[in-house]
């Protein structure tokens, strides 16, 4: 199997997990992590019934699925984007204390520059926070190799191991060499004498926290094997991690004189202070190239041994992603000569709703209903998905977007403070992700809120993965206590506009929680036939008199 394969960096992680013998892969979609799960899912499905791949309703659920798999002694991969780790943080931070049985690797894809995200947080900080190791590849081959090694490390240290990618590596396509695929055999479930390690009542947790801290020297030693000190003749050095390391390595090819700079190449954390000291002893000044937060920069800076330069002193821009140009500017290398086009004002071509998207029809109905009740300027709380595009012109239909599932609670909070009407707009998958507890509280609060669920039957923006709430949005809504009289299912089509406006108007005038489900399949998934097979089976079951009552939404 030692052949060269072309794949994205994030796919190489999925492929490595498969080759490392995982029993299960779990995740929640989120750019730029999505294809990591999809890649291993395809491999698992092609390989037969011995392994499982399962999207979860959110990242915390996905993490716990992986931890449960680990409990049985099997290896597991869990994938998410950086802000998804916030959702999984409770599980992640506490799995540090339980430890793992089968190897558990957490793929987290950060998004410096916020190509498709609401913030630029650095997952290395969260690994440090949880006292857990983090590996940071810089190439597609390393993404594969480090993931393979992460499983071994996870089992050796009995902790979850994070593999941190950033967008540019996650979506870099390159060839890589695979290793032999291991079968998904396990090491056996948590043995009887270790069960208490997994029961985090205070008496056990105190002991396990001491154990976790006692593992730190071994984690540092393991990380040190990934990190490299390269001597040089200059008194100015470079410390580089992740893509900073990739860019600098390539700059040496183009500017061979850079090889004279001593460098600290960082690929794993926690860092070993001895390595840092050894590096700093060779230099008077250090330039630090790392994605997102000044993690290395702060660590090297506090030692006071050399002048440390990077994001904190402005040698590198404080925000945004690195690029070869950013490194060159910091190193004092001249920019390249380039062509210039004759001056012409180039308007931005912003992303927008697909032609014929049902979300647009739903928003237009909501906006017209708001006008009809005399509240055309009412603030509407939105959520995360394709439908976030409505925040921009021409619709300008939502006026607050924070994090997954926030819309409902924001609207309830505003309603409780006196806002009327209070409207939330949320997609079906986001509703399943973290809207469910919010809707329960909405009902419980008694606040007058209207929750608009845009049900396009898939996770649209990330590539039309199946939504966990597929075919059961109304049942979920009713089950959470919204009265049936205040739940309406509508079809967002131009031809149904008048009746959708009337229904929305009624919901806006209702007391307590009212829910409008606008259901029409995402036109991209419709075009690709994503749900074709599912719908055929559904129709068959609905036609069957024995099982029909159970499958009606």
């Amino acid at each position, binding site marked *: 199997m030692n052949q060269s394969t072309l794949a994205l960096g994030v796919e190489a992680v999925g492929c490595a997990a498969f080759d490392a013998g995982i029993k299960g892969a779990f995740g929640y979609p989120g750019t730029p992590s999505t294809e990591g799960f999809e890649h291993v899912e395809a491999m698992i499905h092609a390989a037969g019934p011995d392994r499982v791949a399962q999207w979860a309703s959110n990242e915390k659920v996905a993490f716990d699925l992986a931890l449960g798999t680990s409990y049985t002694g099997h290896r597991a991969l869990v994938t998410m984007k950086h802000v998804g780790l916030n959702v999984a943080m409770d599980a992640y931070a506490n799995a540090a204390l339980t430890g793992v049985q089968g190897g558990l690797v957490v793929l987290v894809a950060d998004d410096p520059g916020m190509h498709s995200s609401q913030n630029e947080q650095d997952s290395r900080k969260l690994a440090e926070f949880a006292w857990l190791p983090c590996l940071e590849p810089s190439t597609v081959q390393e993404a594969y190799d480090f993931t393979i090694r992460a499983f071994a490390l996870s089992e050796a240290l009995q902790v979850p191991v994070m593999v941190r990618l950033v967008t*540019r590596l996650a979506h870099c396509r390159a060839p890589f060499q695979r290793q032999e695929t291991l079968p998904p055999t396990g090491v056996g479930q948590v043995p009887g004498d270790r069960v208490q390690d997994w029961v985090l009542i205070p008496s056990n947790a105190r002991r396990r926290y001491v154990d976790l801290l006692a593992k730190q020297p071994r984690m540092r030693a393991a990380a040190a094997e990934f990190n490299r000190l390269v001597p040089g003749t200059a008194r100015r050095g470079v410390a580089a991690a992740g893509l900073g390391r990739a860019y600098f390595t390539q700059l040496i090819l183009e500017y061979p004189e850079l090889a004279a700079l001593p460098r600290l190449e960082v690929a794993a954390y926690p860092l070993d202070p001895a390595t840092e000291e050894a590096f700093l002893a060779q230099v008077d000044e250090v330039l630090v190239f790392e994605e997102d937060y000044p993690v290395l920069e702060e660590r090297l800076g506090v030692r006071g041994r050399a002048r440390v330069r990077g994001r904190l002193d402005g040698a590198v821009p404080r925000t945004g992603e690195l690029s070869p140009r950013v490194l060159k500017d910091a190193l004092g290398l001249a920019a390249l000569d380039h062509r210039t086009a*004759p001056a012409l004002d180039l308007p931005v071509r912003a992303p927008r709703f697909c032609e014929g998207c049902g979300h647009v029809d739903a928003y237009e109905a909501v906006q017209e209903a708001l006008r009809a009740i005399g509240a055309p300027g009412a603030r509407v709380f939105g959520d995360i998905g394709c439908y976030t595009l409505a925040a921009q012109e021409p619709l300008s239909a939502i006026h607050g977007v924070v994090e997954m599932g926030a819309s409902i609670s924001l609207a309830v909070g505003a309603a409780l403070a006196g806002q009327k009407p209070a409207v939330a707009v949320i997609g079906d998958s986001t509703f399943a992700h973290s809207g469910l507890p919010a809707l329960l509280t909405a009902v419980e609060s008694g606040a007058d809120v209207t929750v608009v669920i845009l049900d396009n039957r898939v996770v649209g923006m990330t590539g039309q993965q199946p939504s966990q709430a597929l075919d059961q949005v109304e049942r979920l809504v009713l089950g959470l206590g919204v009265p049936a009289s205040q739940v309406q299912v509508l079809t967002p089509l131009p031809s149904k506009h008048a009746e959708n406006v009337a229904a929305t108007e009624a919901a806006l005038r209702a007391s307590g929680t009212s829910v409008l489900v606008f259901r029409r399949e995402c036109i991209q998934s419709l075009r690709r036939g994503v749900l074709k097979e599912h719908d055929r089976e559904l129709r068959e079951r609905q036609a069957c008199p024995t099982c029909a009552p159970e499958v009606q939404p």
Partner: protein
Amino acid sequence: MSATRIHGIVLAGVGGQGILSMAQILLEALRRSGLHALQSEIHGMSQRGGSVQAQVCYADTPLTSPLIEEGGADLLIALEPLEALRYVSMLRISGHLVTAEDPVADMEGYPPLEDVHRALRAVRGAHLLDTESLARKLAHKQAGGMAILGLASRFLSVPEAIWREVIAQRFEPKGARIVEKNLEAFSAGRQLLPDGVEA
């Protein structure tokens, strides 16, 4: 140690035009020619009708940086003229530009098309291709992209046989006729330049 020459290609277009697919064909063709190549792309929101850009870089030694900088592109390939203009500054002084003339103008503030074409023609060595007419001539609605690639291929040192092999494999799942139509479009584009202008 002498400096390594790193070659760059920028591909630009609008979400849905097939930029990422074209980038993958390029990557595979370069790789089969014995070169070390990397490709960079951005997924997510931008695919919803926004500007899409991909980059390919290659050299005769292994590379690690998926991004090229302004002035680092030897070739700019665009499927839409306004998108081509956005990336002209990525080109080296000696770089080449190959672009479709036909606009995707369903947006606010699209400049007059003749201004866009004039600006592109002012870029020395620019090649503008009327992909719509070509598609009509070949009776193949999707011919434009492949013809652009064919024209652009003249500026790359990849043997024609490798191009044909990679394109054939790419479209194989869609059937022999689709393979043939795409190879035909590629050849039509490739033959638009007289012999002897290769890079």
